[in-house]
């Protein structure tokens, strides 16, 4: 059985082995030098592939933060590769990206500190073997980097369990009368979404224990198109379908996404922004579905599928977004069609799909 997704340290094992050979001082507990970590993520144009299409300075700051005494908090809109970056960083620094807590409204303190094997606890009382360490605690013991995904989805009082861990670097277990101390190399990467619904505010005390890095959507159209195509191909070939994603369609898709995300078209015309977050990740998903659909159902004209998918994405969050999409069709796509581009002309002919 194939795994759907391999963790980063497995997927890039060869690259990591190569970089581990680089000499130079390493922060205690680190497998690679800081500059090797940056190279691992940004690529060197040769044997190490570029994995993150963002600002190099940002990655450098992230690496520096992890070597210090503050946690790293990656914030940004959904689908800006925050989680991917945190996975790559942990894989490169600790060689293990599995110590992860998934934050949600149901996350409780035990998942950040420690829990108990209740049966054992009731039967024998508190003991070391009844204690179930959280990923954070096991990272502290191992001197590794732990990840907390979507930390702002945890309730504020649950988040605050992190405060003492990050500032004191130890965790007391009063039931056992013991204190667990973090081994060198321990740190925390959290990702957070500040714009999404249903997120909680972080307390000021916790904020002060983190360095913040804001991850912006990808800057250039070409880079984003290339990324969407590459990632979409990966999902498709993972499904073993002999699929192909049409270049022109992907470019049109990414252009529409970017226009609606930025509230301004490539040409500089104003557009009404949608409430739904049109992230790169979302574009990858749409491109993937387009590819799969044309692979299994032999669609003659992949462009004709685009409006339907766009509508599906836009309608996810707010029904009013459909009106914005129609508005986009009537203004931007129409102007482009009048400009004579064949693809946009075809899209304008498909206006009826998105609504009256």
């Amino acid at each position, binding site marked *: 059985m194939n795994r759907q997704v391999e963790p980063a340290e497995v997927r890039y094992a060869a690259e990591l082995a190569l970089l581990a050979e680089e000499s130079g001082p390493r922060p205690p507990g680190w497998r690679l030098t800081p500059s090797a970590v940056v190279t691992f993520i940004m690529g060197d144009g040769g044997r190490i592939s570029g994995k993150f299409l963002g600002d190099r300075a940002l990655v*450098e700051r992230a690496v520096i933060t992890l070597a210090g005494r503050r946690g790293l908090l990656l914030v940004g809109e959904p689908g800006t590769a925050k989680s991917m970056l945190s996975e790559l960083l942990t894989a490169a620094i600790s060689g293990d990206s599995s110590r992860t807590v998934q934050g949600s409204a149901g996350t409780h303190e035990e998942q950040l500190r420690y829990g108990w094997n*209740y049966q054992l606890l*009731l039967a024998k009382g508190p003991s070391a073997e009844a204690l179930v360490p959280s990923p954070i605690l096991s990272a502290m013991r191992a001197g590794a980097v732990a990840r907390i995904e979507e930390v702002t989805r945890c309730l504020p009082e649950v988040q605050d369990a992190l405060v003492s861990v990050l500032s004191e670097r130890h965790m007391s277990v009063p039931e056992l009368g013991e204190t667990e101390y973090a081994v060198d190399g321990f740190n925390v990467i959290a990702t957070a979404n500040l714009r999404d619904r249903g997120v*909680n505010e972080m307390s000021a005390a916790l904020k*002060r224990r*983190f*360095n*913040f890095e804001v991850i912006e959507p990808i800057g250039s159209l070409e880079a984003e198109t290339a990324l969407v195509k590459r990632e979409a191909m990966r999902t498709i070939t993972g499904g073993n379908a002999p699929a192909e994603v049409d270049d022109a369609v992907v470019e049109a898709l990414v252009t529409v996404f970017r226009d609606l995300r930025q509230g301004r078209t490539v040409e500089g015309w104003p557009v009404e922004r949608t409430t739904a977050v049109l992230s790169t990740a979302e574009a990858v998903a749409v491109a993937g579905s387009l590819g799969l659909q044309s692979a299994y159902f032999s669609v003659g004209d992949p462009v004709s599928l685009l409006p339907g998918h766009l509508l599906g994405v836009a309608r996810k969050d707010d029904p009013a977004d459909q009106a914005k999409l129609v508005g986009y069709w009537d203004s931007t796509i129409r102007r482009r069609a009048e400009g004579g581009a064949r693809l946009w002309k075809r899209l304008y002919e498909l206006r009826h799909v998105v609504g009256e």
Partner: protein
Amino acid sequence: MTDPSQAVERLVTSSAPFLIGVRHHSAALAVAVPELLNAAAPDAVLVELPVELQEWLPWLAHPETTTPVALAIARPDGARLGFYPFADFSPELAALRWAAANGVPAHAIDVTVDRNDDSPRRGVGDLLRRHAGTDTLEAAWDRLVETPSYGADPERVRRAALAYGWAVRADADPVSDADLVRETHMRHRLREVGAARPAVVVGAFHAAAFVEPAPEMPLPAAREDVVTSLIPYNFALLDSRSGYPAGVRDPGWHQEVVLSKGRPEALDDAVALLAARVCARLRADGHVAGTPDAVAVYTMARELASLRGLPAPGRAELVEGLQSALAQGEPLGRARAVAKAAEQVLVGERRGRIAGEAPRSGLVAHVADLRKELRLPVRDRAFRLDPFRSPLDRRRHVAMFRMRAAGIDYAQPGEMTGVAGAESVTKTWEAHWTPASDATVELAGVYGPDLATAAEGRLTWRLRRGTSVTEILDEAAEAGLPELTARLIAEIGDTFPATAGLVELLDAYRQVHRIRSGGVPGIPTPPANADRTATRLMTTAVSGVDGYAGADSPVELAALRDLIGLADDTHRESLVWQLERMTDTAGPAAQGAIAAALVRLSARDSDWLTGRITGWVDAGGPTLGDRLRGVLVMAGPMLEASSESLTGLTERIGAWSPERFLDRLPALRKGFDTLSTAARDRLLATLELDAIPDTTDDPADLARWEAADRAGYAAVAAMLPAPAETPDAPAAPATAGAMSPETAHRWRLILGRQAEKLPVEQRRLARALDELYGRGHGEGSAGGGLEAPYPSAREWAEDLTELFGERVREEVLGAAAARGRNDVVSELDPERVEPSVDLLQNVLSLAGALPESRLAVLRPIVARIVDQLVKALATRMRPALTGLTVPRPTFRPTGRLDLSGTLRRNLHTARMRDDVLELAVERPVFHSRGNRTASWHIHLIVDVSGSMERSVIHSALTAAILHGVSALSITFTAFSTQVLDLSDRVSDPLSLLMEVSIGGGTDIGKAVAYTRKRLTVPSRSIVALITDFEEGGSTGRLLSEIRSLAETGAVLLGLAALDDTGVPVYNKQIAAAVAAAGMPVAALSPSELARWIVDQVNRR
């Protein structure tokens, strides 16, 4: 294409000339230049400055000249040709200083070329982008040259700079004509100087032109008519974000680099110092930023530098450190505060000074010449100018205003501008040239080398800093700056109709009208757009008049009066139409004013007004005083001139029974108190009371009059078929032209004048009311003796009860309390007071003026009222806010084990083993969490200017109740023209209310800006702005503040009035504009506000 490394090598190895390619502000090069020149030992130093500036080079390099300074070249008419600021981090200045110190001649070799403004700017091309990976030249320079140079060998710095310049040139291909002309000129000059080993310090871009073959261009004719000057400058203007030319980002940072001589260790310390300063600044602004944060910034900057292989952190690393460690990922919240603090620290406050013996130039010289030419006095207390008749005086007038506009401390206009058209032609000035004047001329020099540019520069700067457009317009017009004036008029025409309130509109109209009618000496030919703008302003003012239906304060009423006075014929019709619609629906004071306005506009005749007034007077009631006030504000002067409209009123007053009269007297007195003392005297004169024989106390006279009255009444009654009405007074209905003495007395009482002519018993009435109103205000109120005041408030209160009865006593004492009579408060009984917002308002208006001892008496009263009001409000608000928080058992593992529940649930698995009871837990039971707590920040921004008392009370109570809800944090900001943060007092509404003193103007923008700076988590913040939207500050700034607040994503609400009752008074235009800028405006009562907050909190 030439091979880059060879090309750069040719530049580096060139010895005649020896090339130093620079960027105009570069600390690294400024540090390296002296050493480079020491090594090269040139016999002449040539710099890229226009030849016209040659004479200034020694003064620029003078040891007593303190940077920053700037060289300027301008045409005689003031148009700027070139502007070259210098600081310690300017490599050219370092070269000139080296030349001066080593006795090597220095030469300026450039030429000024008229640049076409829209010629494309040089940018980052492909070559540079590949190497630097950034999109701006400044960042590319930082990355490629500046930061790697700290502590580096000067020769390497030179090479890096030349390589950078070569790359920019390669990207810029082809080089523009203007550049080619300048380069040709520089080569010519180099040959003319004829030095054996010349060193050329030029922009790195131009270096290649001295080595590579370059086209020869025809040279422009030499300029002879230019004015050059060396002026002191400052870092605030040198910062490139100030909008002034040839600046650099964060001059304070570059200064630190020069001070540390580029040594990495010293620079390291500088970064630590700057990080600490930014944190300190943040703390001063009320944000949390302690030493650990400064340490985090410093560590980040240092480690980044080492990761990037830099010898020391540069500006980019410092800024990245600040951003990462302090901004907390809130680009619109905290990050803005960090950016502001960083800007203040990194820009710095350094000011330059010119060496003492340097020839005076620029503004200093210009002003000295001008003073001589215009024969401006050194000292004259009353310097009289007649600008409309004497051309010299016109020039003087303009020069004086220009000096004022430029901030030069010299003359004050002695006589203030009057209302439109009523201005005197001559103007008196009080002028005195002091040492402060000299100092301020120096300061003004940064804005330009002559008065007109300096005045314009400073006005534009102030405009950008938020001074209102009308204020600037006034100064710009007086200072004779036609272009700026036309621009401002255009701006007013574009923005005011949508944003300004009536007061502001009329103010702007008056100014524009004055300019267009040639009333400003500085602007003899009015700008073309003045007529159109004036018309638009008036149209807007007229169409927005219905927003004043609730006008009540003197300012609002006066604005209405001014509108009627200023409206021209074209707008009369629509104004009348608007007012007619409001005659019966407006608030009491506004109704009065509107009725009188319609007469002034000749839309109604005075009989109609008389009818209305008598109707109101007959009806009496609490609104009577306000209605009269409105009438008198609008029509005071008209009534003074003719008593016609008052005839009807006289009839009514004469016809009342003494009781009815007494009942209405306080209200009538209040209404007429609107008029100044002298005006009331004139009114009395118009009424011709003196023609009526004075009353005496002689009983015989009284009896005679009584008899005459009755006879007269009988005669009238006999003439009528049936009695029209039963007279309820001894006074007979007045016949035309005659007034009974009784009626005359009543008038005296109403107007509060000539008390000495009153009969004894009525003097008591006058005295009781005089106690409240005193001698009045305005013209004629000064001096003169009153009747002896009451010895104590108690006696007064007793007299009031006796003379007027309980109800009037309450009314008069309440009014006295509102007017700041402290002593009457002790007459109020805490046990018996009926809690009402009105009373609270009256009592609170005293709070500011009372000493602590009296406050002690007041406290129980206020406490009782506040308590009761809070209770009433809270019952309505709390349930919606809190909800249930009872923990319940659940199987979901929440982390809080319900031990007893688990035991009960799993008892069936209990087994005894080795004398120990063992339980095999199958299903553990947990406590569920209570209600989810969502933390929200609620910011109440409350206007405490004059008209807002009731709203302030309501918002303070609301704040106190919201404070009790654990999930909400409340900040309470009160503002008038000052902003006062009272958040620490919201828990105690009593002390909050005691703290707020109501009154003063309105600067909403300032308060909004204050709150915006304090927004830490915009997405979970609610900002409620409670105001009448009568912005006294700049509306443009208010709107941009609202817009930036809306951009942060906070939930906004503007509240027009927070009152349970009453007609809301608010400025419709501004409210509409505020709504358009992203803050919805509504009029909500306190309970509705609470409901709205709950809705917002629950929605997310």
